[in-house]
């Protein structure tokens, strides 16, 4: 019981971390894009198109991570569903 309680407390603390991590990832991606896009460069990281695609696909993933953190903070993962009826 105490072990379960501790696990749930850790999940809640972690939830806060996931919520912060998500915008940080997007910020770092945008920063890296600005630093590396270079019309004279020849590598993929120098072209704008890969960055546009990656940031486009990563933004909803990062939002998903924030929601994951929020659910975690709210205790949604304290008890996982035992059957599909619990979903």
């Amino acid at each position: 019981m105490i072990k379960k309680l501790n696990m749930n407390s850790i999940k809640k603390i972690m939830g806060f971390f996931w919520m912060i991590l998500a915008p940080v990832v997007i910020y770092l991606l945008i920063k890296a894009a600005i630093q590396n896009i270079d019309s004279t460069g020849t590598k993929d990281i120098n072209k704008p198109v890969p960055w546009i695609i990656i940031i486009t696909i990563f933004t909803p993933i990062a939002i998903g991570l924030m929601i994951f953190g929020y659910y975690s903070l709210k205790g949604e993962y304290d008890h996982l569903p035992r059957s599909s009826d619990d979903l």
Partner: protein
Amino acid sequence: MVLSNGKGIGKVIFSSSLGTLIEWYDFYIFGMLAKTISIQFFPEGNDTAALLSTLAIFAAGFLVRPFGALVFGRLGDMIGRKSTFLFTLVLMGGSTFLIGLIPGYRTIGIAAPLLVLLLRLIQGLALGGEYGGAATYVAEHSPVNRRGYYTSWIQTTATLGLFVALGVIMLVKSNMTDASFTSEWGGWRYPFWISILLVIVSIYIRLKMSESPLYTKLKKEGKASLNPLKESFGNKGNFKMVLLALFGAVMGQGVVWYTGQFYAQSFLENTAKIEFMQNREIMLWGIGLATPFFLVFGALSDRIGRKWIMLSGMLLGVIFYRPIFNTFLKDTNIKEWKKMEGNATPTIISKEILKVDSTQIGNELVQVTHSKIKWQSQQGTGFTETRADTILNSEATQGLTKEDTKPVFADKILSAPMKWKFISLVFVMILFVTMAYAPIAAFLVELFPTRIRYTSMSLPYHIGNGVFGGLVPFIATLLSAGSPTDPLVGLWYPILIAALCVVIGTFYLSNKIDKNIND
């Protein structure tokens, strides 16, 4: 109803796995032949072609694959598993075959890269729809105590697809000259044409299959989902499990899978500079020897649960990637090879002067001699050295030679014991892949209800593998640009993602096997 007799389930596994293997084969040959395809369809110096090339590489894996998971996942939950993954097979096989028929840029101009891009996007779409269907189909036929084992056959297909693609390309390439292979209608097209034969056989087999028993029951009872996307991602209870599957399992599995199978090959070729055919031989052996372990870990997951096997595979990757890749680098260090004694001492077997550049600077004539030297030892090791030595001719210098301090070494051939050491290391990395990947189909199937299973499991799977896994080379290049002196810096991305996944998985996932997937 599940098929507990060996014969029935054997047919189900064979027909599902064969089609999925062919889809992986089709998807890989494009990537493996990217250099040749680029010469034929995306010539250098043409900005439009370069843009289309970038789109073909990035959009197919990152954007279209998850989109395919949504499109075909929805279809699979609405009209059935069988017809959906039959359709994805036709799409994939058809587009692969057609890529092999498109004339080059020199013949039809910009239409060539446009058509290739279109067909590559269709390939990405089809791949997004295939896996979820095959995994669901097999799991819904499997008895509860064998679900991990039976679905692990599906898990072998991604690795076997790579194995077959490598094998077919090596076979074709070894039977012709480089010029014949890379010409406009050359040997590089054969792997694309071979695909159509495989697809026809697979379609024939899949047509004879019946629908999943669980889905048929659901449909008969009128309980099939009318809006799987809304139910999967609009229902909080299910959506939180989609997020958990992605961040607690598939994200880490994706990077482990990609690092072991693709990054390793690219690292051996481009950083360690191992000769083309030997590099593929090392990969083929490593993959071939490790593949049976998918079945071992799939079966083990039926006994001890899925969670810890998957997380152990990721954790081992986190711990051992840097030592393994560092060994690749150290053992291919030419400075060390040159110091070797006895039969291992490399000696020059040929020297070719490529060109001599001469410049008069004041009273001094500066000559730069570019040469290519082939070295070989009696033990069988060898390498090519390309160097540019400078000769200074003036009264003062009198032919003084300044040796190139940074010669380029390539086409390294390892001795037999060293080759087997490398095979063992690749084997170990594929072993991590088998641990992380083997139980994942059963794990995902058990997480979601039958009525929206195809949709719910396909999206996290393809984001984890396509996006997180597919980003490994891009982020590696990015990190290398920031720390150009550290050749191992690119590994920090898979290590960090896998570590993050291990932490989330450890605290959030349950190791309990869901016995009832009929709900």
